[in-house]
């Protein structure tokens, strides 16, 4: 089931989320988080078990963009891979250059976990499209 994130987040927030997820699990020979459906997984969860974290995501994505603007003078989604990785390594530690309305490290931890849950758990949860993550690591469901 595909879920439309635009009901939950602004277009700009969806773009930041997509780039964030693809930085957490980047595409290579195998799909990155977004192509594999981690965004779809999150959208379903934000209307279910993680409904209480919608505010965390809205504020966190906006703050991430503001942090990128402050540090690099451009939107998070416009940063190159090296800059994104460097910025997220700082956020992971809770090191921010501007004031965040939420706990930056907690937001990063949640996003990191949710991207992986969508990517590595069963496709029935909305991610891991065509079992791409399982094919990549060699977990095959035979029976």
């Amino acid at each position, binding site marked *: 089931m595909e879920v439309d994130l635009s009901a939950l987040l602004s277009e700009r927030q969806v773009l930041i989320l997509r780039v964030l997820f693809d930085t957490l699990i980047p595409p290579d020979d195998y799909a990155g988080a977004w192509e594999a459906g981690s965004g779809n997984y999150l959208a379903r969860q934000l209307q279910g078990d993680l409904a209480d974290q919608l505010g965390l995501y809205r504020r966190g994505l906006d703050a991430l963009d503001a942090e990128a603007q402050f540090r690099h003078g451009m939107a998070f989604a416009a940063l190159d891979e090296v800059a994104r990785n460097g910025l997220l390594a700082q956020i992971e530690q809770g090191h921010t250059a501007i004031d965040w309305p939420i706990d930056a490290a907690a937001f990063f931890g949640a996003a990191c976990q949710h991207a992986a*849950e969508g990517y590595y*758990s069963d496709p029935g949860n909305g991610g891991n499209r065509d079992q791409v993550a399982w094919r990549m690591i*060699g977990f095959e469901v035979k029976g």
Partner: protein
Amino acid sequence: MAHYDVIIVGAGAGGGVVAGVLAEAGRRVLLLERGAHLSYDEIARDHLRNHRLALYGHNTGPEPDGHPRVFVDPTGREQIVRPHEGGYHNNAMTVGGGTRVYGAQAWRFLPQDFRMASEYGVPEGSSLADWPISYDELAPDYERAEWEVGVAGDSDASAQHWPRERGYPMPPVTPCGAAPALQRAAAELGWPAFAVPLLINTTPYLGRPACTQCQHCVGFACPVDAKNGSQNTMLVRALASGNCTLVTHAQVDQVTVTPTGRVNGVRYYDAAGQQHNIQAEQVVVAAGAIETARLLLNSRSTAHRDGLGNAYDQVGRHLQGHYYPRVAALMPESVYDGIGPGVSIATTAFNHGNDGIIGGGMLANDFIVLPIIFWRGYMPPEIPRWGSAAKAFMRENYQRVTHVMGPVQDIPSPLARVTLDPQVRDRYGMPVARLSGTTHPETVRAAEFMWQRAREWLTAAGAERTWGTPPGLSLSGGQHQAGTCRMGEDPRTSVTDHWGRVHGHDNLFVADASLHVTNGGFNPVLTVLALAFRVARRMDAM
């Protein structure tokens, strides 16, 4: 008013066995189960909601809301927890109980496990004690469990460690994954190692097929019903006898008594919240170590002001489970063959006789690990959890990482306990279980010792590196919960006699792991099944 010969509370491992034995003996049995009779499809294969990883819920109950517990952590902080949250110590609440979704390891406890106090002495602050029965007394019931529920194992190897009259009914699972490397390493170290006995059909048995070696065993239901629990063996026999009525969604909140204090039935709530009073000649409580204690504590009356069997404040104490020291190892090449269940080799070299350690435990290789569980907890600590390094580690090493782990004998503390919470109530208005205390520090020492042995085994098996940390002091419970209504001869230090009959009551029995005086260094289910056969045997003779 409905009247039965026997009412059994809980259709798990113990309750199912008692129901089968007594219904076949002609008793009219009412079996009450708070959970549902779930189909395979209802339990499903959700990797985020199962009995291996319950991030957002469970596949086998209870429902997320309406069934809280209160957990007091080792620092004294208390919180209300839902079934899938840390601190709840959930076990599957469905017909079959934990046996519906377990890993099905079928270990007998060793003779020394029944006399821990005599073997080791009692450390200060611990309630370590001998069982009132010996291994030899339970051996015929172990054998019955192995044959009537169905165990696959290496009979010859087992006979070298356990006195036994008869072998297993089915041959063991084939060695898979890292088993060959671990077998070679054990031989080098001089440690006996052999196939893990499992309550899983390796051949067609008792009318059901052999295991198809799928990848979703532990934590899930079996797709071909080759995993043997109470729900597809003894309960089926109970229902086929025509003498057993199974009622699901029935939450018992009281074992009822006459004005003079004699047990005469139970009170339960159905799914709609309707209250029912049912009478019986005998009552068996088999709701799991936490819920059994909760029910007895809540069964207060003029004659039994502190609950049933609780005249000496013993009900709910000595809560035990198992510590699980686990070591992960990176092997030189793939040790993954995708053949389930995966667990296939164990050593019992360190269950006893460890210098300066009380007890010890069994070590075994692990079940097939779900990818998301691997990502969450099985990567080396210095590997980032995100970015290309994380993805590369998953991709290159999921099949090269293996684990050794095992249950460490819990050294019990009377302060690890179940009480009734004075404020929080469930959806029926029944006070919820409040869990507090920790195991005795000797358990932590034993776990550290076993963690070292696990590392030694993996290193000898050729591991390029190992990682993991031994567990710290905490409360044990969870799926292996035990000890809260321990057997004994002295009513001041135990809840039931050596037949599982509650002291002071000739018609009230316990038939689950609550009875365990100590919990062995093994998965406890075969002991739960054997004790239930024993309790039923006694009741049948009355």
